[in-house]
């Protein structure tokens, strides 16, 4: 409903060395408020050391219908994976 607080998506970094991961959403009036709410709602059990909030309306997503054109072309590029290559016996650290 237009009269209510906007929706924010929340991303939490569980610990240093990991990237921020999407955990859910919440409603808040402004960015500072969203950050407070995210901290209170999504890190009650020490789940995070850092939080991002992003207005849900600001996210551009790929469409599931585009899955074929977006992601399937990577299917046949097996040479991007190390297992594609044959390594002679006895060669280590490669």
């Amino acid at each position, binding site marked *: 409903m237009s009269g209510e607080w906007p929706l924010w998506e929340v991303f939490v970094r569980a610990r240093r060395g990991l990237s921020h991961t999407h955990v859910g959403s919440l409603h808040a009036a402004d960015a500072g408020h969203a950050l407070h709410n995210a901290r*209170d709602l999504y890190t009650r059990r020490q789940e995070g050391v850092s939080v991002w909030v992003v207005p849900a309306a600001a996210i551009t997503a790929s469409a599931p219908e585009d899955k074929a054109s977006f992601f399937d072309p990577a299917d046949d590029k097996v040479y991007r994976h190390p297992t594609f290559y044959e390594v002679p016996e006895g060669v280590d650290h490669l």
Partner: protein
Amino acid sequence: MTTGTGPGTDAATAGYLLRLGDDALIAGHRMAEVVTRAPQLEEDVALANIALDLLGQARPLLTRAGELEGEGRDEDTLAYLRDEPEFRNCLLVELPNTDFAHTIARHLLFSCYARELYAALAASTDDVLAGVAGKAVKELDYHRDHAAQWTVRLGDGTEESAARMAAALDAAWPHVDEMFTADPVISAAAASGAGVDPAGLRPAWDSAVDAVLAEAGLHRPDLPPQAGPGGRGGRHGLHTQSFGFLLAEMQHVHRSHPGAAW
């Protein structure tokens, strides 16, 4: 400094800890009353967090008060089996949740005070108190920020919210001075190094609160401190009318089953 009667007891510090513990206990109780009634579900979660922090401060403070008192009273005995005149909390923390603005006004004025208090008490000569204070100051930083954000939103929101916030500040303001007024117990604790003289916290409180009010477009109420009968207030055990109801509710089950464990 007054000392208690047995080894390891210290009546003055015990009395001081009781004041701190009661402030946290009653502030936490009032905050918890709002849970399930907040303006938005996210805020139920936020206020519950704050209530839990305050309760988490009250428990070790009361436990320590009981130890130093040396009469075998634990946190529950102190919370549930004292009568109204034995509670030493300041009057500000017991003010009722008339509306969300009143909750926020109380929360702002108290957390700005408690934040400065615990920052100073991290250096207390009482190790337990210093430990509680070190943890509490981080919690209070957040509480103060939470209260400040809401004060600004309400003060700088709609005409209605600004009027409600101003009225709530007016209701709480006369109880501000009490937080900064030392009684003999507080002075003794300050002299021993266990406590601090709250008067010294006032300048930092003034600048923190004034900055929030300025951003919120609100004015500092021009109201004198409310004097209790004979100049007595919460620190002397003389409370506001609503406090008896708070205690009756809080203590009823515990008192109905003398000696029972829970």
